[in-house]
């Protein structure tokens, strides 16, 4: 599917992707202990703003949702609410081994073990925890992906909402969101495109 999209990209898509990749705003929401690696990444030593990435306080204007570490069930609910508020295109980056397989909270009774069951993860940064060098490398990989037009995981949330919703319900029971995800999918021209 990615190859097909690649060949169908218009010149405008390429221009747009090149503009988009240089202004990624990351939602300033920190869930776990991995957040301590972000201040050095943001500030002058590693300075992620030279790649156009900077923290943003509101989800409405953010492009990247960085999940910095373990997610308890209570936090996951907030993260899902935040994710649905974000405007597409949006990229979820799982940060640290906790988001991949639970990490050291493997047997914990209240942390989730696989983030990509609940949100469409664009990319994982492995490590416990990833150092700023790894974060910068990861963001550069994300930038490359966006430039090539391959960073389309966010569409999966609208195309296969049943899968994510079923898993969310498995953890929460019924989840009350303020967004009609199907409507959002139409608005972002994801759902209609597949019909």
């Amino acid at each position, binding site marked *: 599917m990615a190859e097909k999209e690649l060949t169908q990209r218009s010149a405008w898509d390429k221009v747009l992707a090149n503009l988009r990749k240089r202004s990624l705003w990351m939602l300033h929401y920190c869930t776990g202990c991995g957040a301590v690696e972000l201040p050095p990444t943001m500030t002058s030593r590693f300075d992620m703003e030279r790649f156009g990435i900077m923290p943003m306080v509101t989800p409405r204007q953010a492009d990247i949702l960085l999940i910095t570490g373990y997610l308890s069930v209570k936090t996951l609910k907030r993260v899902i609410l935040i994710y649905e508020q974000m405007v597409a295109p949006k990229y979820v980056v799982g940060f640290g081994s906790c988001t991949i*397989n639970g990490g050291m909270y493997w047997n914990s009774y*209240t942390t989730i073990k696989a983030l990509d069951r609940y949100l469409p993860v664009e990319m994982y940064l492995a490590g416990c925890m990833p150092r700023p060098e790894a974060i910068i490398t990861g963001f550069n990989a994300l930038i490359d992906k966006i430039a090539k037009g391959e960073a389309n995981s966010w569409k*999966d949330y609208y195309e*296969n909402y049943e899968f994510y919703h079923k898993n969310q319900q498995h953890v929460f029971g019924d989840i009350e969101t303020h967004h009609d995800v199907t409507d959002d999918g139409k608005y972002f021209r994801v759902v209609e495109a597949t019909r």
Partner: protein
Amino acid sequence: MSELTRTPNAGRPLAALGAARHAEAILAAILSETGADGFHVKGARRVEGQVQADSLHSFAAAMKSRVGFEHLSAISCVDWIAQGEFELVYHFWSYRDNCLVSAHVRIDRAIASMDTITDLWMPASFFERDIHEFFGVVFQGNTDLERYILTDWKGPPPMRKDFVSRDFAHEHFHYKDYEPTWDEMIEGGYHGSRGKSGGAE
């Protein structure tokens, strides 16, 4: 009077507060004012002892009003599963004496019920709520025992010794299966696990 001898209660004059007492003097005050026996000096600034569950409220009230322990530091809970009991530990602190008094209360594990002390200390409500959530102890008279951290919890109280965290986690959460193709996925870009290991269980 040097600055070093001042207590954290800076608002009040030292004369009204009185000089700090030794642990033995505090023990004597506890015995005479609250009528509780079974207390002993544990260290220079530590006094501890047992209190019956039904007399804990009057003991705490006397500690606050007459012995001068005006601060409730914490309430903690221990699960003694072999004896079939919960042990609640009430930590009282005196700003005048810089001394900690721990009152240990044993309650029946099967009934798990205790009187609230929120009428004496409002902050006790939070400790009681916490213990209710993680040990399942019901505090009679506390009107705010809602869930705090485990908002969508379906299982038994998780800090009880007979709760097996591992079994619960494996029953309620999706785990990633190890896949030998991960190396290739990392090379070629990872697009999420959907479709690889099926849907929700």
